[in-house]
């Protein structure tokens, strides 16, 4: 043995260690691969040795090589060997290697389960720590399942070092093995109040991570976290909690209201930017969730915006970036407050950091209004000119188009200006977004009828100057705009002033160098133009012009007939033959224009992007069925030409139909013409004017050098800037006019229109043109859409688990060793889940309930009357079996058998009300002993019970009150919203049904009321505490159930309170009988020694089933769970 050790250390002297390896790699830069392959060979040799030290050294080297990208999966088993070394030095290396190299597919992981379990339970905390750390990296579903219980035990380890690791790793376990979440959750929750801050913060971390994914299951923890938030000073913890609240508030707006104040305090007080940022983000989330309900939180918004402004103004690029990012979130709900910081945002466009510029651009998108759109776009256009990189310039371009086209061109008041902007954008060299500009041109020209004349003129100019756009290569994306230009000129050729000239431009030989799909459009639209020209010249005595046009086509089209592009060729040859035929007719002096025009008649309307999807599938049509045999897979898809258009259809929210009467229109048009005539900046788009581009990079155009002190205006080309001025003037004028009108009106109407005298609002800006934006067409019977779904592959989806439901036996984690503790769901909090369906279901019931509550008084005095009015089951019970149910006040209290679980909440308050009134009305009748039910009940326990009852009554009265309000809220919505504003604050969510199944067989069903409602602790902790358990018995059979006896096997800690004189094992008689289908409730009192010990009591219910023919004796076993938490009295916590 000793020899072996010596031999081992001698071996090691000759082995390379990690440092040698690293150094070797650095020294063999030229032949690194070769060097490493020899190293790997050495490592393989080393791994074959018995010496664990050598093996560990080899594994360590492998881990390094793995990082360099070499495959080391072959050594997985050796890694496991090193992991299982008893020496910490090697174990540590083994686990490190495993955490770096293992993944779900590694099969040796199966072998590690027992080793890891051994390490987890090691007496040395660092062994456990290392195992936990490693496990966090390579945990698989199998490992998670097998080790979940061990890790859960470690959560209560004596050393905080282990506890915090165990808590953190639980999150990974939950992800891999979601079934473990419910059993482990109570303990996880306990850790939120661990004395060690590290453990506490770990628990906060885990719960926050869980809650972020499935917030609704964690709403009940809100009070606890709220307490933590207000008490904690650890920024790391605070950030997590605040983030958690950010996830919860959308589900529970009332929580948001409570959060605003502490969050704003934090914003004011903290110096940590990370915390400030988190607070601001959550405040924003809160405000978003409140935006519908709460009118005024302008102070908080202002605070956020101010703080963000400080961030944005900071010299730190990171803060600037985050400030802009958060600002964009505010923008969505409170655009006004952000808009006032426009200057700052525009400044950011000049930032040297591109990511900041892009963020600022994002913001601008939401900041535009009718008022400032032109100004903002002008600034952006300046940046387009300045931008160096094409990526950023392209980004700017798309943003400009996005900004302008958003919400169906909502903010554009002057479409002439927009067309000019689009035309200016075509001057960008080398942009990828030619098709985007083109589709905008098409969209505007098609949908804004009023602009067609202007658009056509501009497009004709573009076509005329096509050579500037096409520039050098076909790859130049901008030539796509020619597609749009040609189409617009052709389709709306009636607006062209000189169609002949445009036709000529479209048939230039240079066109043949354009991409095929554009040529095809050229050819097709040349034909449309031809039709227009013919019609124009029809009726003229001299048919020379028309014939000249035909000749032009016949001369030029053969070029396209020879095109390699099939589409172009086909269209060209078709049209060529057509024109030849027309020429013949023309020579015979036949009038053809009418017929040629008919070829292109008909209006084209835009189709909504979703239209195709919305076409309802006819009955009996299976779209998935193959019409022919499916093609073999090898068949390659034909390369289709890229669909250029119909991709960027603007998102359409609502169309604006502005109806103006003809007179008004004419008047305005007249006014505009006058204005234009007098405006030296207004450029009439006349085709005769000289066309020169100032696009860069077109040196071959002969330019006459003129010395101009005045900036040169290029006639014929629209300048968007001039529209800005024009618009200003127009607005001024309109404003003045409006003022005049208003004055007049005011004189007439007096004070009536006082409110209008404010500053110019959005709506006041009338568009320059009366624009009718054509809506996109949808098919008839379009189906409503609902097509967003969560990603089914999201691992967190599996963790969407209701944590408030009690734990079933089947859910317990697989346990190896004996564990006495039983985990059960903790007490439900009042601030529980909101289940909308249930609320809805209830509101109807509550209505009844309310009625019933009012009538209870009368019911007391006039029992007869109520018979007709109420059909509730319990009343039926009272009526049909008065001798059984109405025994005494005492039993009556208990005798409110709910019909179904969902109805229980409603019945409880009503019974409470009944008791309330009865005890007030007839206190002297109260002490009547029940005739046949619980005659042995002791005075003392009864007294206690009564006391409890009273407390409960009070509670329930309160609850009823709240229910009452809630009812108002849901039914009478708008009318008393003012009142609701205050009431709502105090109102907890409708609690879920508190009863859950205790035991059940074919005859009877036992339901136990859940903890917080029932387990009331009486007396102080030294004395015996008493706990009342309410059990509902429901007869499920067709037979009569009687002589029910309830018994529980007492434990040392918890005992069922039996009447005096009864033995410790005697059973209690249930104070009622159950006819078929009826349920009733009984209370049982337990005395509890210690409330810090969880308990599980076994019990039996025996009863006689009596049917017409026979009667049998039956038995039902059940278990009562008392957890420590269930002893707690929950006082409603209002945030």
């Amino acid at each position: 043995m000793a020899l072996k050790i010596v031999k081992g250390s001698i071996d090691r002297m000759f082995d390379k260690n990690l440092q040698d390896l690293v150094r070797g790699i650095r020294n063999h830069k030229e032949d690194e691969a070769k060097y490493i392959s020899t190293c790997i060979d050495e490592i393989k040799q080393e791994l074959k040795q018995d010496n664990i030290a050598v093996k560990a050294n080899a594994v360590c080297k492998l881990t390094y090589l793995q990082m360099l990208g070499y495959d080391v999966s072959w050594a997985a088993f050796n890694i496991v060997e090193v992991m299982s070394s008893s020496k910490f030095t090697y174990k540590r290396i083994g686990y490190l290697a495993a955490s770096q190299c293992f993944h779900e597919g590694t099969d040796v992981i199966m072998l590690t389960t027992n080793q890891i379990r051994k390490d987890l339970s090691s007496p040395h905390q660092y062994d456990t720590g290392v195992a936990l750390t490693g496990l966090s990296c390579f945990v698989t579903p199998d490992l998670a399942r097998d080790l979940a219980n061990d890790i859960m035990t470690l959560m209560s380890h004596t050393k905080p070092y282990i506890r915090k690791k165990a808590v953190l790793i639980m999150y990974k376990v939950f992800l891999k093995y979601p079934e473990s979440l419910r059993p482990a959750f109570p303990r996880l929750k306990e850790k939120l109040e661990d004395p060690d801050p590290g453990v506490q913060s770990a628990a906060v971390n885990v719960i926050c991570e869980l809650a972020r994914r499935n917030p609704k299951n964690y709403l009940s923890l809100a009070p606890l976290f709220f307490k933590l938030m207000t008490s904690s000073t650890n920024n790391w913890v605070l950030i997590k909690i605040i983030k958690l609240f950010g996830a919860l508030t959308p589900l529970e707006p009332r929580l948001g209201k409570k959060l605003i104040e502490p969050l704003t305090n934090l914003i004011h007080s903290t110096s940590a930017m990370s915390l400030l940022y988190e607070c601001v983000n959550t405040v924003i989330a809160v405000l978003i969730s409140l935006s519908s309900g709460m009118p005024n939180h302008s102070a908080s918004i202002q605070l956020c915006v101010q703080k963000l402004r400080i961030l944005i103004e900071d010299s730190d690029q990171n803060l600037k970036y985050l400030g802009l990012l958060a600002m964009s979130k505010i923008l969505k709900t409170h655009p006004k407050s952000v808009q006032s910081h426009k200057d700052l945002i525009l400044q950011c466009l000049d930032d040297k950091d591109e990511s900041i510029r892009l963020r600022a651009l994002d913001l601008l998108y939401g900041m535009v209004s009718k008022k400032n759109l032109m100004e903002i776009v002008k600034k952006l256009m300046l940046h387009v000119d300045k931008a160096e990189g094409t990526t950023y310039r392209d980004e700017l371009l798309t943003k400009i188009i996005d900004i302008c086209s958003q919400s169906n061109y909502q903010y554009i008041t002057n479409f002439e200006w927009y067309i000019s902007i689009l035309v200016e954008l075509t001057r960008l060299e080398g942009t990828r977004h030619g098709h985007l500009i083109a589709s905008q041109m098409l969209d505007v020209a098609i949908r804004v009828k009023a602009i067609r004349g202007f658009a056509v003129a501009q497009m004709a100019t573009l076509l005329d100057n096509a050579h500037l756009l096409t520039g050098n290569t076909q790859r130049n994306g901008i030539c796509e705009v020619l597609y749009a230009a040609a189409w617009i000129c052709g389709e709306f050729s009636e607006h062209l002033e000189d169609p002949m000239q445009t036709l000529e431009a479209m048939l230039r030989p240079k066109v043949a160098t354009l991409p095929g799909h554009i040529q095809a459009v050229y050819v097709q639209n040349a034909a449309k133009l031809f039709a227009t020209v013919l019609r124009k010249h029809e009726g003229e005595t001299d048919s020379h012009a028309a014939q000249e046009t035909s000749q032009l086509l016949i001369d030029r089209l053969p070029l396209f007939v020879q095109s390699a592009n099939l589409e172009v060729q086909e269209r060209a040859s078709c049209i060529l033959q057509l024109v030849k035929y027309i020429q013949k007719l023309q020579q015979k002096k036949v009038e053809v224009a009418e017929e040629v025009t008919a070829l292109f008649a008909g209006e084209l309307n835009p189709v909504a992007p979703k239209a195709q999807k919305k076409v309802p599938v006819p009955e009996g049509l299976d779209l998935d069925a193959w019409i022919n045999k499916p093609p073999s897979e090898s068949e390659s898809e034909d390369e289709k030409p890229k669909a250029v258009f119909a991709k960027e259809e603007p998102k359409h929210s609502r169309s604006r139909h502005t109806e103006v009467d003809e007179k008004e229109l004419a008047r305005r048009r007249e006014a505009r013409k006058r204005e234009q005539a007098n405006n030296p900046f207004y450029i009439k788009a006349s085709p005769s004017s000289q066309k020169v581009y100032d696009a860069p990079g077109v040196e071959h155009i002969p330019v006459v050098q003129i010395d101009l002190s005045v900036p040169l205006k290029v006639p014929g080309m629209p300048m968007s800037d001039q529209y800005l001025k024009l618009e200003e003037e127009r607005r001024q004028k309109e404003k003045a006019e409006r003022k005049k009108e208003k004055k007049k009106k005011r004189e007439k109407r007096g004070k009536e229109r006082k409110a209008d005298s404010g500053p110019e609002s959005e709506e006041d800006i009338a568009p320059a043109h009366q624009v009718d934006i054509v809506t996109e067409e949808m098919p008839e019977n379009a189906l409503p859409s609902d097509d967003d779904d969560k990603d089914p592959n999201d691992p967190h989806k599996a963790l969407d688990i209701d944590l408030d439901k009690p734990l079933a036996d089947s859910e317990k984690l697989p346990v190896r060793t004996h564990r006495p503790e039983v985990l059960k769901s903790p007490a439900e909090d009042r601030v529980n889940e909101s289940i909308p369906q249930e609320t809805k279901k209830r509101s109807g019931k509550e209505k009844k309930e309310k009625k019933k509550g009012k009538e209870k008084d009368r019911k007391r005095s006039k029992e007869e009357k109520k018979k007709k009015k109420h059909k509730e089951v319990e009343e039926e019970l009272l009526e049909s079996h008065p001798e059984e149910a109405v025994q005494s006040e005492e039993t009556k209290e208990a005798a409110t058998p709910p019909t179904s679980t969902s109805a229980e909440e409603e019945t409880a308050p009503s019974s409470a009300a009944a008791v309330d009134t009865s005890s007030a009305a007839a206190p002297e009748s109260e002490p009547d002993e029940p005739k046949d039910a619980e005659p042995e009940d002791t005075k003392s326990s009864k007294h206690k019970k009564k006391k409890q009852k009273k407390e409960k009554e009070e509670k329930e009265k309160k609850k009823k009150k709240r229910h009452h309000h809630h009812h108002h809220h849901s039914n009478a919505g708008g009318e008393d919203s003012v009142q609701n504003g205050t009431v709502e604050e105090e109102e907890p969510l409708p609690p879920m049904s508190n009863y859950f199944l205790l035991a059940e067989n074919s005859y009877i069903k036992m339901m136990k009321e859940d903890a917080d409602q029932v387990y009331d602790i009486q007396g102080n902790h030294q004395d015996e505490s008493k706990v009342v358990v309410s059990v509902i018995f429901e007869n499920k059979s067709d037979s009569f159930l009687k002589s029910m006896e309830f018994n529980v096997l007492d434990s040392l800690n918890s005992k069922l309170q039996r009447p005096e004189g009864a033995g410790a094992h005697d059973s209690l008689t249930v104070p009622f009988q159950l006819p078929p289908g009826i349920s009733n409730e009984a209370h049982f009192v337990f005395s509890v020694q210690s409330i810090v010990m969880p308990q599980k009591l076994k019990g039996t219910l025996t009863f006689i089933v009596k049917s017409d023919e026979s009667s049998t004796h039956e038995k039902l076993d059940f278990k009562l769970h008392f957890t420590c938490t269930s002893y707690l009295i929950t006082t409603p916590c209002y945030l």
Partner: protein
Amino acid sequence: MQFMLLFSRQGKLRLQKWYVPLSDKEKKKITRELVQTVLARKPKMCSFLEWRDLKIVYKRYASLYFCCAIEDQDNELITLEIIHRYVELLDKYFGSVCELDIIFNFEKAYFILDEFLLGGEAQETSKKNVLKAIEQADLLQEVSTEVYYHHCKATAIGVHHRVFGLSL
């Protein structure tokens, strides 16, 4: 946090820690892509970038880039804080740390990281506690290996780049 990468200005990976299960192939692809993207950024640019559906937070310390991937809702600033905290820990442990320390003692760098973060979450925010845990664990190690570390650190390569200047 989804993963953390350390790489040099030359694009050489120095440390990687993955908190999400991914295949080796995927890891390599992500690493390559991120190293390229981050190295291409200009020095004055902010430390955040959006990448796929994640947010990348990176910071350069001397010749090393520390790069973390976080999810959409995570806090960028606290991630920067985590990176900085880790650098501080390395600095305290190695005594004014340099890239070579991490190259030659890469497993130590991992051990420190593992004491600081677990499963992508900060497990210990106190620097003192992290270092204490590491030191105590180191005590359990065999003495012989300790000797190696000191030996190596001294002889690592003539020039020591003490450039991790931590201006805190």
